[in-house]
């Protein structure tokens, strides 16, 4: 996937002591793109961000900005501004001094600094707070000061280390959109580290999913959501229902054998590559449809399973059922409740059923 390569990572690896934190990171990021680095804690996403900022040197590989090698440049020579998870605002400086510090370093005249700081305050809704110390600000205000400090130096690349994770849930939702809109307006390339799937989906042009220090998949939010490249990605993107099936490919379709809960059927491969043998089938609770009788099943491509409702709960918007299919239990949503003990048919549309060769086969 060769893009115009504004920011390029080639074979980047990092180790901490004897632990390999990152390996084989190849990534090409276009100018103005918003990238989300998504992964669970310990997957190496923060290490990758600190490596870009220059606080960690990679053990191998190179980082290039506009075809210029910056791999071993000190942090202050990179022109990448990082918004820390802790915000890391200087407690001995006021809001204005925090925001203006980068400009002061560049030798910008004092009057110019003052006007640019107040413009930044106006843009971020921090008017009237210039004389406050960070201790006297709310969490949301601190977050905006940290962002203002990073943006004040007009960075080419903005690095965001889970900047929303310390905010209240309600503020977080609106800040997502504000941040995204700001990034688009300023045309800055942004790399956003997060463990929140929804946050990544809503904000990013492209999501890079990291697993154990490697890129598991990267692509647009629709791609990683609807066409996960591996069982890990499928599970991480919410397809947590898992069933073991058997089958073999036959030209453009995959022939599924009858199992304890399903009859033999075929699914279109649609470009997927599958080997004959055991497969792991994954789907989201909201993708499954429940029917009281098999006769009601829709005439659309998919796989039907027979099962028994074990439990039902109402998390809001829909009813969530625990259904036993053979020896497995899965979750399935339905607009109306099916009472426990009922025999039901579960239909999973073909496009929502993710098949992967099981690691054992």
């Amino acid at each position, binding site marked *: 996937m060769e893009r115009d390569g504004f920011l390029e990572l080639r074979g980047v690896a990092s180790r901490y002591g004897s632990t390999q934190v990152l390996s084989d990171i190849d990534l090409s990021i276009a100018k103005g793109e918003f990238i989300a680095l998504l992964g669970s804690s310990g997957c190496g996403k923060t290490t990758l961000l600190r490596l870009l900022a*220059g606080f960690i040197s990679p053990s191998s590989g190179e980082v290039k900005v506009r075809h210029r090698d910056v791999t071993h440049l000190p942090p202050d020579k990179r022109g990448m501004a990082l918004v820390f998870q802790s915000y890391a605002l200087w407690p001995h400086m006021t809001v204005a001094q925090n925001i203006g*510090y980068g400009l002061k370093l560049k030798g910008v005249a004092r009057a110019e600094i003052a006007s640019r700081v107040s413009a930044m305050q106006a843009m971020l809704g921090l008017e009237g707070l210039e004389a406050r110390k960070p201790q006297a600000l709310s969490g949301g205000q601190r977050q905006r000061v940290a962002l203002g400090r*990073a943006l004040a130096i007009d960075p080419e690349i903005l690095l965001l280390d889970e900047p929303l994770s310390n905010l209240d849930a309600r503020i977080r939702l609106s800040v997502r959109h504000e941040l995204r809109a700001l990034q688009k307006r300023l045309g800055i390339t942004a790399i956003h580290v997060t463990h929140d799937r929804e946050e990544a989906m809503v904000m990013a042009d492209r999501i890079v999913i990291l697993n154990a220090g490697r890129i598991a998949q990267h692509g647009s939010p629709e791609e990683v959501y609807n066409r996960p490249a591996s069982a890990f990605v499928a599970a991480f993107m919410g397809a947590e229902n898992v069933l073991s099936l058997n089958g073999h490919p036959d030209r453009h379709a995959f022939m599924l054998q009858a199992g304890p809960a399903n009859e033999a059927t075929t699914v279109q491969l649609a470009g997927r590559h599958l080997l004959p043998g055991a497969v792991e089938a994954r789907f989201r609770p909201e993708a499954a449809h429940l029917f009281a009788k098999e006769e009601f099943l829709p005439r659309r491509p998919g796989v039907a399973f027979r099962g028994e409702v074990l439990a039902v709960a109402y998390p809001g918007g829909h009813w969530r059922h625990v259904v036993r299919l053979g020896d497995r239990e899965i979750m399935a949503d339905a607009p109306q409740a099916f009472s426990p003990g009922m025999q039901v048919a579960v239909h999973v549309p073909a496009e929502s059923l993710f098949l992967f060769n099981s690691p054992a086969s």
Partner: protein
Amino acid sequence: MKASRNPLAALWWVPRGLVFGLMAFFIFGPLFNLLLWTVAEKWYFPHSLPLEYGFSSWAKVFAPRGGAVESLTNSIVVALLTVVVSLLLAIPAGYALARLKLPLRGLILLAFLIPQAFPNLTVYVNVARIFYEIGLNGTIPGVVMVHVSHGLVYAVWIATAAFSAIDAELEQAARNIGAGAMRTFLDVTLPLAAPGLMASAIFVFLESLDEFTGSYFVGAPDVNMLPLLLYTAGAGGNYQIASITALLLLVPSLVFMLIVERFLKADVLSRVGH
């Protein structure tokens, strides 16, 4: 709860009052005695209060021949120089100990305690002998060196604690935004460590001010310091002079202790020696 309903609980203030009263007496009694001596003209046994009051001893102490002015100047000059030298050593040392992944870090911190680990007398007699050979005996730099070796443990330990109390991300934030390593140190690290460094400076100053053994062996008789004056006056039975000298030593200690108490925050204090 049970005790408060007991009628005897009302008498609880008696032992408490006695304990606090005794504590106050042991702390303020000698101080009051000292203050009385500084203004006593005539005071002898068995009288419990001075017979005559006056300031003639003060005049004697601050007379050109009294030697107090010279001792006071010497003491302050030495203490200030000790602070400067100690901080110049302790700032880089403390920063390195706080930030770098040094092997044997604990051992290095402990090494600064060595001057305190052996009997002062033995150490300073030998120091005096060596200083005498190289011409440092009886000079201000000689006394300053002895005081620095003594005060460095406070300076380095507190400076290390002050630097490690600063979140490394605050420095990284400055580097990230374009500040070089030195600029970051001056703009972010040093101002944030300043209260801790101030406290360590005060400790070193006070230590130097009433250090006796080293000053005696290395300084006297060419460089006379305040504690020496106190010692001679006290030994000679001149309690007025001794008390006034003691007061001169006491006042800066009290003032600075109040300042230290304001500056030394719990987050720094909890890191001392770690």
